[in-house]
């Protein structure tokens, strides 16, 4: 392929990515934006096979590459298609991890290749070191994130004695070996550096509490983007530089937006576990009484309310109860009750998780009210129905300095007349903190799977 044609097509792919991100920022154009991005990626992947090459330099491994792509498609597409919407966050984490791993491998191979003609240039070495360190960190960090979200390991912050010194020492080790690679080249330093970076990724994510994991996914995502940009520098590929930088920049903004939605600084998210006192979920250990109700009690409360706000959380996603909750809301609306959904920006396990789920159930967009708008309306709300949420309505975020979610903006549901919690058990939420509101006099608990409970409430309501 002619050099100019190749460059112009590469540029077209880069423009596709910009349009994709732009499109993804507005609900109306989001899906089209994603398809434009996919088209750009496909274009870029096809043209690279026809990249101009120096005369007499044959292609290698073409068949193997095509088989590898086919294999990747066979793994990736079914995983993406079959995954339950509840497990989406961990899948995104995993995809991000393999991307980071791929970037680290690409940089390593190019390093081996450049090293054949003696020590590579310093600029190339710096870019390689950056890619391998950040790519490895992103890979192992994403795997730990995946395990936390999949609950293959504890979702609580993992803090070990002198943890911050171990992490600091590992970081110094990573940077030191990075300097060693830049100074001397050679394979051993690179191997040691990669190993230390993998370890650093694990140590870096372990202390992050469950509720903050989405922020970490977003941060690692931005990191992976930057590694792609750095490997683009080594490979002299404008497309990789542009695409990687776009992801790095937009990912950084997105991470900040998410952290802001949770009322936390990025620093506090990443290092908070070292300063906060670990809270015992069982508290004083005394058995305290809670008021639990039957589906009929709940139906009666809802039936005579003027205004009901539904606060969905991860439990709604787990129980796949989005359609049932909509049925309930429609039923109430038909009875003349003013119904709205109070959406906490980080309810569920990813920002916007609830919006996606409720959109699936065709809940009208206007009924989804964001936190800042819904909070002032709670004093005029008769009943708040909390469906599988906990941390986002936990007053401890306001009243208990030092608890992991302290400072996070919450939905002030305690201002409402009655609060109904649909919960599976008294187990604390994802962040592992006791919720005082459960013991409040105006709170009624309805235990059980959210979908079952809602179905019972719906039939009780119909019978009234």
């Amino acid at each position: 392929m002619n050099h100019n044609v190749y460059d112009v097509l590469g540029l077209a792919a880069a423009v596709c990515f910009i349009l994709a991100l732009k499109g993804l920022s507005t609900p109306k154009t989001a899906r089209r934006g994603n398809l434009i991005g996919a088209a750009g990626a496909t274009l870029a992947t096809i043209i690279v096979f026809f990249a101009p090459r120096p005369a007499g330099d044959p292609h290698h491994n073409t068949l193997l590459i095509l088989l590898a792509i086919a294999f990747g498609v066979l793994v990736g597409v079914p995983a993406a298609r079959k995954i339950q919407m509840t497990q989406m966050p961990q899948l995104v984490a995993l995809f991000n991890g393999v991307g980071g791993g791929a970037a680290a491998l690409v940089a390593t191979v190019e390093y081996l290749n450049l090293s054949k003609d003696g020590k590579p240039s310093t600029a190339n070495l710096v870019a390689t070191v950056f890619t391998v360190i950040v790519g490895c960190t992103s890979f192992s960090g994403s795997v730990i994130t995946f395990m936390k979200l999949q609950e293959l390991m504890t979702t609580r912050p993992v803090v070990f004695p002198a943890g911050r010194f171990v992490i600091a020492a590992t970081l110094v080790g990573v940077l030191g070996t990075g300097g060693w690679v830049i100074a001397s080249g050679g394979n051993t330093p690179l191997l040691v550096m990669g190993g230390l970076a993998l370890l650093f990724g694990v140590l870096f994510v372990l202390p992050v509490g469950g509720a903050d994991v989405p922020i970490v996914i977003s941060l690692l995502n931005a990191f992976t983007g930057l590694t792609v940009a750095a490997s683009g520098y080594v490979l002299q590929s404008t497309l990789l530089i542009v695409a990687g930088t776009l992801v790095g920049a937009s990912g950084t903004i997105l991470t900040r937006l998410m952290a802001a939605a949770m009322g936390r600084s990025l620093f506090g998210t990443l290092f908070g576990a070292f300063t906060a006192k670990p809270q015992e979920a069982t508290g004083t250990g005394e058995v305290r009484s809670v008021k639990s109700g039957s589906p009929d009690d709940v139906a009666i409360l809802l039936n005579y309310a003027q205004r009901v706000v539904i606060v969905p959380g991860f439990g709604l996603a787990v129980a796949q109860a989005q359609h049932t909750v909509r049925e309930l809301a429609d039923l109430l609306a038909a009875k003349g009750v003013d119904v709205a959904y109070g959406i906490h920006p980080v309810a569920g396990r990813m920002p916007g998780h609830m919006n996606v789920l409720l959109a699936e159930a065709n809940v009208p967009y206007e009924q989804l009210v964001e936190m800042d708008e819904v909070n002032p309306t709670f004093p005029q709300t008769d009943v708040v129905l909390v469906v599988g949420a906990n941390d986002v309505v936990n007053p401890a975020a306001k009243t208990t300095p030092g608890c992991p979610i302290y400072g996070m903006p919450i939905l002030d549901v305690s201002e409402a007349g009655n609060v109904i919690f649909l919960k599976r058990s008294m187990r604390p939420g994802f962040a592992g903190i006791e919720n005082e509101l459960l013991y409040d006099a105006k709170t009624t608990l309805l235990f059980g799977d959210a979908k079952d409970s809602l179905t019972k409430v719906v039939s009780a309501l119909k019978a009234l």
Partner: protein
Amino acid sequence: MTTMAILTIFLLAIFVGFEVVSKVSTTLHTPLMSGANAIHGIILVGAIIVADNATSTLETSLSILAVVLATINMVGGFVVTDRMLEMFKGKPKAKKEVAK
């Protein structure tokens, strides 16, 4: 390509990246993250370039592994993003119903 040209591209891309997502609503945070995640799957192009030049067994196996991982990232990323966004369709209709 000169370092200066690369630096220029890099800086301009940062500003474009900041600009395009600066006004995104929380509703779209998750799909946007997922979409950006798919875009960095473009490392597939880099993986193909190095695999295409690989001669030794070590280089070949590492770069082929990179191709597999990058493909999973890219293809899986776009598909899962599309699945999330699929759920947003039909919204304008729902809007009108409420208005009545």
